[in-house]
């Protein structure tokens, strides 16, 4: 635990790899996972074409990944993104991260390009590049099963791409297990561009800790306390689909690519309870006591895991198909091909709107694309993954705009060229929307979403938590800059420790956060890291990401904006009809937000801030 390693692997012929101990000061200053990945990217790898051999694909485990804690199965995959052309970073759960640590490594940096399909096999200290020609073309689960069978090891952990990553579909994901995904920002396309089908790992080394018995006791006490929480019990029973009802009834789960209002009564057919006939029970990532993932079966069909709220939101609500069986089928198909559920479903909704507006013809579309037609949506998933027909255009994600009529542009909702789509809450929950404008990976909820903003908590609870006033009304702009900033620092630390978002202040103001992290770090490493030092690490990580955006040419105020639809078209119906983002309020938010980070009025980190944080 006290000494951890980075392995550098180059897949190009005749280039040898090497290993390096993670410098202790990096761990102390950037914590691990996302933080150390970002430091590696910033300090060693200038921006390059994301699909070129020089783009480093960085896998990073958290400082506490694999230990008793708050959902410690997680890790980050980081690279320049072929989906947005900017910064790519995707957090993934399951069991791979801990296994990589048991093999002795905290980070893998993969560069180069193999002339033929290969996979990487890591068995403790031994790392081999192996032929993957027979795996090429296989789905994500088949690949994992084939590798387990061939290596005669039912404990092998694999991160793999599916056929979509092989074909450089820009929203290709990396999958481990039946559905855990490094889903966003095209990390699977980066693997495909390197001819890297999979990374398989098996470790048998002790992850030593400073105070094992105390860690066992503290871990048990904390997990017991967590398990008693109502929100944990609910999440452990219904999974993330529990959010559908409040989002629909609150009026912020909208339909038809954000053109129309919420589903209203029709949405009831896809509330969390609708999964019960399909659910076989729950599943979880390594070391997690929340167990938020369904195991499912469509009668007579294959079994699988999921689906999550995202597939209901970006799929069922967005496409106007409030049908749970459709959601399960879409979930399984997208994961089998290895694509991001959000981006894939957003591209399908985008195509539906282009067809509705006559921007693409029936012949370009290959047939009618009608809202509410789930079968056509499923057919488009196949076409995107196989790059067939219009699927070949949609597979380009944001870059599809270059192949479409000019007037298509505004209907693909993006921030910093990353697809946002009809993200729930977009115009209604102001902290969610404003968070999208500044997220360092383009519009994505997990950089800064103050999930608790929709709970209507007493103002004093918010003021105590955020050390400053914030409105309890989710439609208000007041105090939301502080809220977004506060969550950015916490989530940067949470990711870098290897912990789960759902077990920190996302669903509840009383969830574990800095004080519990501080104690776990002390028990695991014997480090006394104060809450202030942890928060400063969060700021260092976030500011490093902002500096990376600067290098990529999107790190200034003009890029901190939102889709035109959110700024110009009020919500068309439901309880939040008329809500829209006010540009003057967005500007005011940015002023406050930049000041909290110590960035200048144009959104660039001030030299004194960079110096004080010691970023180099």
């Amino acid at each position, binding site marked *: *635990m006290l000494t951890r390693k980075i392995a550098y692997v180059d897949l190009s012929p005749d280039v040898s790899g090497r290993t390096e101990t993670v410098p202790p000061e990096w761990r102390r200053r950037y914590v691990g996972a996302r933080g150390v990945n970002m430091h590696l990217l910033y300090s060693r790898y200038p921006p390059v074409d994301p699909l070129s051999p020089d783009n480093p694909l960085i896998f990073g485990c958290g400082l506490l990944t*694999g*230990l*008793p804690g708050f959902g410690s199965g997680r890790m980050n995959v980081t690279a320049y993104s072929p989906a947005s052309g900017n910064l790519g970073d995707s957090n993934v759960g399951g*069991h791979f991260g*801990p296994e990589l640590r*048991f093999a002795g490594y905290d980070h893998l940096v993969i560069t180069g390009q193999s002339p033929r399909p290969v996979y990487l096999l890591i068995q*403790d200290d031994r790392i081999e590049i192996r032929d993957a020609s027979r795996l090429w073309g296989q789905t994500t*689960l088949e690949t*994992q*099963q084939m590798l387990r069978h061939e290596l005669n090891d*039912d*404990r092998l952990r694999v991160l793999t791409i599916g056929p979509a990553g092989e074909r450089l579909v820009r929203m290709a994901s990396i999958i481990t*297990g*039946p559905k855990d995904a490094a889903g966003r920002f095209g990390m699977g396309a980066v693997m495909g561009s390197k001819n890297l089908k999979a990374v398989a790992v098996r*470790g*048998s*080394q*002790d*992850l*030593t*800790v400073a105070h*094992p*018995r105390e*860690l*066992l006791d503290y*871990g*048990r006490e904390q*997990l*017991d306390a967590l*398990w008693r929480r109502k929100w944990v019990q609910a999440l452990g029973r219904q999974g993330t689909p529990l959010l559908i009802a409040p989002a629909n009834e609150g009026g912020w789960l909208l339909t038809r690519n954000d053109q129309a209002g919420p589903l209203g009564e029709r949405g009831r057919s896809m509330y969390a309870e609708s999964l019960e006939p399909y659910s*076989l*029970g*729950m*599943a*979880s*990532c*390594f*070391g*997690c*006591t929340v*167990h938020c*993932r369904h*195991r*499912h*079966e469509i009668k007579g069909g*294959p*079994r*699988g*895991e999921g689906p999550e709220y995202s597939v209901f939101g970006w799929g069922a609500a967005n496409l106007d198909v409030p049908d749970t069986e459709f959601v399960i089928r879409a979930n399984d198909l997208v994961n089998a091909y290895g694509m991001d559920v959000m981006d894939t479903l957003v591209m399908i909704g985008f195509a539906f709107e282009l067809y509705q507006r006559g921007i693409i013809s029936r012949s370009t579309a290959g047939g009618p694309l009608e809202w509410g037609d789930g079968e056509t949506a499923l057919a488009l998933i196949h076409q995107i993954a196989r790059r067939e027909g219009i699927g070949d255009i949609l597979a380009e994600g944001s870059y599809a705009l270059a192949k479409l009529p000019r007037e298509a542009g505004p209907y693909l909702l993006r921030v910093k060229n990353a697809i946002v789509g009809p993200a729930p809450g977009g115009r209604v929950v102001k902290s969610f929307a404003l968070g999208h404008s500044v997220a360092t990976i383009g519009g994505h909820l997990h950089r800064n979403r103050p999930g608790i903003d929709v709970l209507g908590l007493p103002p004093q609870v918010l003021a105590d938590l955020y050390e400053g006033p914030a409105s309890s009304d989710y439609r208000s702009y007041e105090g939301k800059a502080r809220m977004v900033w506060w969550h950015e620092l916490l989530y940067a630390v949470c990711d870098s420790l290897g912990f789960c978002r759902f077990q920190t202040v996302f669903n509840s103001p009383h969830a574990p956060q800095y004080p519990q992290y501080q104690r776990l770090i002390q028990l695991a490493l014997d480090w006394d890291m104060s809450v202030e030092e942890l928060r400063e690490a969060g700021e260092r990580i976030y500011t490093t990401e902002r500096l990376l955006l600067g290098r990529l040419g999107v790190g200034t105020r003009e890029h901190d904006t939102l889709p035109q639809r959110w700024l110009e078209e009020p919500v068309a119906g439901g309880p939040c009809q008329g809500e829209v983002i006010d540009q003057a309020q967005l500007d005011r938010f940015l002023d406050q937000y930049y000041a909290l980070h110590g960035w200048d009025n144009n959104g660039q980190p001030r030299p004194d801030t960079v110096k004080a944080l010691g970023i180099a």
Partner: protein
Amino acid sequence: MERRDIQVNVPVCTGCRLCEIACSLFHRGAVNPEGARVRVIEDWARSLYEPHICQLCQPTLCVQACPLEALTQDSASGVVRVDPDLCNNCGACVAACPHGAIRWSDALGELLVCDRCGGKPSCVPFCHRGALSLPNTSEGGVR
């Protein structure tokens, strides 16, 4: 040490492997599932996670199968003890166990079987779903 039965309820296991974490921390002072005496096996096709842990059988098939008398069963607790000096990894006990609960680790060079942590199993309290429970004791039923 008195007998501590651990009841296994497969359908509710979520595969979190906190049992493996707790077991290895207790026995090794480090997290290392390879060295855990409880093990969760996944079956993706059936969408099941199956915990395997010693059931303190009587008669004890693993003990009977051992040609070198490296295994003995403690009469009071039912726990199977391994004498590492006598064990030569012949695999007879592993083949004989109907629960898949005794295992040789090539990587660690150890025969691994649950010893109930000396009377207070570390894994069970971490299993909030009740896939592992202590049915006969006040502290241990399904929670």
